[in-house]
């Protein structure tokens, strides 16, 4: 593999793995505090799947990088500016509605992305996608049902879900805006052209929000800066402080 291809594949894997790591971490914060026992189980299950996928993506990133690092090194020893997740993933949980709306907006993209990656020219990528897409389609089914149930529930649940959508929607666009890494990955057949996923995504979330009696914001304004690390939110640093604490406080220890 050429040096350029290597760096494209490395960046691509970080973007996939940092999404699942950071979102998985956020979801795991719910443990023991969900509105009903079945949701405790489902949230733990989602977090577990996402952390499992992180092991694959960051493991591959570390292999490609070829500096003898592990997935754990990448997860626990990078600082915020080296993270490549979409900003959506690092936003705080808020109430249960905000957590599930964030999950739905992510799952719809994640499922479409993984489905496309099953045809990746890079075998190691399509192998991960094959495994992950099954989990993602289950996550999607569940988060979609919950968004519809709570949107079309009581007046209070409707209003909370609308507020969650209004807050989170500006973080959706980032997932579809290609930069040079994405263009190179598409050109080499590693990943799809990001914009090509948008039409299906828009149609899917429109159908869901209609069923949920929720209104998609008119503005397509998109916050960016997570996927290229240029400017994360203030929230990420706090998340990392928590997540990385043991590895930072006791460097070199084996756990």
């Amino acid at each position, binding site marked *: 593999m050429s040096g350029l291809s290597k760096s494209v594949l490395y960046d691509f894997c970080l973007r996939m793995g940092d999404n699942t790591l950071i979102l998985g971490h956020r979801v795991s914060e719910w*443990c*023991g505090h969900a509105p009903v026992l079945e949701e405790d189980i489902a949230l733990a299950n989602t977090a577990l799947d996402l952390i499992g996928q992180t092991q694959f993506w960051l493991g591959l990133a570390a292999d490609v990088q070829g500096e003898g690092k592990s997935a754990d090194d990448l997860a626990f020893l990078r600082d915020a500016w080296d993270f490549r997740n979409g900003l959506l993933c690092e936003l705080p949980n808020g109430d249960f509605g905000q957590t599930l709306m964030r999950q739905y907006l992510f799952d719809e993209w994640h499922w479409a992305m993984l489905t496309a990656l099953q045809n990746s020219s890079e075998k190691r990528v399509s192998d991960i996608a094959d495994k992950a897409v099954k989990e993602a389609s289950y996550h999607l089914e569940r988060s979609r049902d919950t968004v519809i149930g709570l949107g079309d529930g*009581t007046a*209070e649940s409707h209003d909370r879900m609308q507020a969650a959508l209004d807050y989170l929607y500006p973080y959706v666009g980032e997932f579809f805006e290609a930069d040079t890494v994405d263009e190179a990955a598409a050109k080499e057949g590693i990943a799809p052209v990001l914009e090509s996923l948008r039409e299906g995504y828009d149609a899917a979330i429109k159908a869901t929000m209609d069923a949920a009696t929720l209104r998609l914001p008119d503005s397509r304004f998109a916050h960016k800066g997570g996927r290229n690390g240029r400017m994360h939110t203030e929230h990420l640093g706090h998340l990392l402080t*928590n*997540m990385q604490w*043991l590895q930072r406080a006791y460097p070199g*220890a084996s756990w």
Partner: protein
Amino acid sequence: MYAQMVKSTGEGLKSREDMSPEEAAFQDKIDADIKIEPKDWMPEGYRKTLIRQIGQHAHSEIVGQLPEGNWITRAPTLERKAILLAKVQDEAGHGLYLYCAAETLGVSRDDLTEQLLDGRMKYSSIFNYPTLNWADMGAVGWLVDGAAIMNQVPLQRTSFGPYSRAMIRICKEESFHQRQGYDIMMKMAQGSEAQKRMAQDALNRLWFPSLMMFGPSDADSVHSVQSMAWKIKMDSNDELRQRFVDQTVPQAEYLGLTVPDESLKWNDEKGGYDFSEPDWDEFFDVIKGNGPCNVDRLAARNKAWDDGAWVREGLLAHAEKRAARKTAAE
């Protein structure tokens, strides 16, 4: 064990002559190891005692998520985080099986939950202790799940069918938890000086609270005699505690850790260890609500329940709307 000091409602054991024909037939079934199923006739005391015991066990699984959940976001590796998530997910699942088993006795999960939240029902005293360093995740699996298994393995043979079947499912997962816990302890005990210190600190703090899980000596308890006759309690608290100590001390030695009990000594004659009793005054304080974490644990569960009210109501309203739309369409 997750059910401590469950009072049976019987006045003590009835003699055969005092039993009604129904009661005698019921006891005969139990003596013959025939399972009691929900639709079978059963004495009111049996039903009520089981609801308390299974409910307390279920609540322990639920509250037990909190001390371990405390470390999920700080787990030191991706693998450890995944294992811990899977474990806590299992515990929530155990709560679910057990609430289902209790529901077959005619009490709803919501009713039991209300009783937990307003303090009428208890959960195991162990979950009122804090988890303060990463080795606690090892010690909880090793000691707390280990003590739970001690109690739950015999309960697989308990007389009430749904409870027995729940125990069989649960025990498989609990032994996995215990192995994972011990694996963390191994890493810590063989690790850096700081890690060894964490491991010893965890053992120091959790040893006696783990012994308390079996409850105080019940040698003279009328409740225990009745529960044992009904086969909803299979061994005495002291027997289980002795078995636990005998199993655990060699494991601690293998780890190179010191059990925090100066009186601990092998007794050849009885073929088991002599050991110090836990501080039972402390135990009763914890049971009364004065443990280090009682207030925080109950507050966390109450907050989860209260904050989740709109979600439960919203999903219920949606289900009703859907059902109504379906009827209207027919």
